[in-house]
């Protein structure tokens, strides 16, 4: 296990690059869901405030 984590001495470069790319992927999921939630919430507010023809 320790040998695996060490990656033949490249650990300091390899793991950060995996962390950044997979982190960006996860952030994309979070951002996408948040932007959809925000748009849904504002659509609901609009409907509640004055019907669909505001």
């Amino acid at each position, binding site marked *: 296990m320790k040998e695996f984590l060490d990656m033949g*001495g*490249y650990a300091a470069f390899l793991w*950060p*690059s995996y962390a950044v790319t*997979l982190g960006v992927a996860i952030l*994309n*999921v979070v951002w996408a869901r948040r932007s959809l939630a925000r748009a849904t919430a504002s*659509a609901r507010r609009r409907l509640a405030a004055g019907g669909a023809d505001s």
Partner: protein
Amino acid sequence: MNWAWFHRLASPPHIYRLAQQLTPWFAWPAAALILTALYGGLVLAPPDYQQGDGFRIIYMHAPAAWMSLMVYTTMAVAAAVALIWRMKVAHAVAASCAPIGASFTFAALVTGSLWGEPMWGTWWEWDPRLTSELILLFLYLGYMGLRGAIDDPQRADRTSAVLAVVGIVNVPIIHYSVTWWNSLHQAPSVMRLGKPQLSMPMLWPLLLMLLGFTLFFVAVLLVRLRGEILVRERSASWIREVVGT
């Protein structure tokens, strides 16, 4: 020719519902493919004879670079479709693409730099591929800046669509000129970041990873697309049905 079926297919409510239904069909296979490829790339693939275990950065760098270009192309094609056929949904697709593409372009730059340090001995090398990625990031930032600077959503859509189309015409020219520029100044002593010779056990995780990230892009795009459609369809009564007041 009767285009009625086309307009029904491209109508916002239809696309919204379709996006909702399709998302899991892309998201779960994407997760499965990426996890399999991670295992294949980190555990099963043998170390490279030249770069040792360092070559495994390719399983992150290549998909990020692939995403940066594929997303830009998708964005430009959607923008062109939107301009030519005046399709609101296509504008929503283009708007959804930009943040995804920009973030993966950033990841491609960071992983390229992390790969460069052990291979070249410097964090940054004016390598043609890295330089092109950097310029691509500027193109994304300009697109998002232009979109953000225009208040009227329809004008923002159409103006930024022109920019996306102009950008995609320029991408090959930029890439060619950067490659040409680099070939003039190439210092022979610096080792190039050559593509490692990939044998089969090294190659299949990479291909799975590329496919996985592509499906992942579609899934994230579909989620964002629904939000963008809601923003654009302010007065449509179908929204009441889908957001469930």
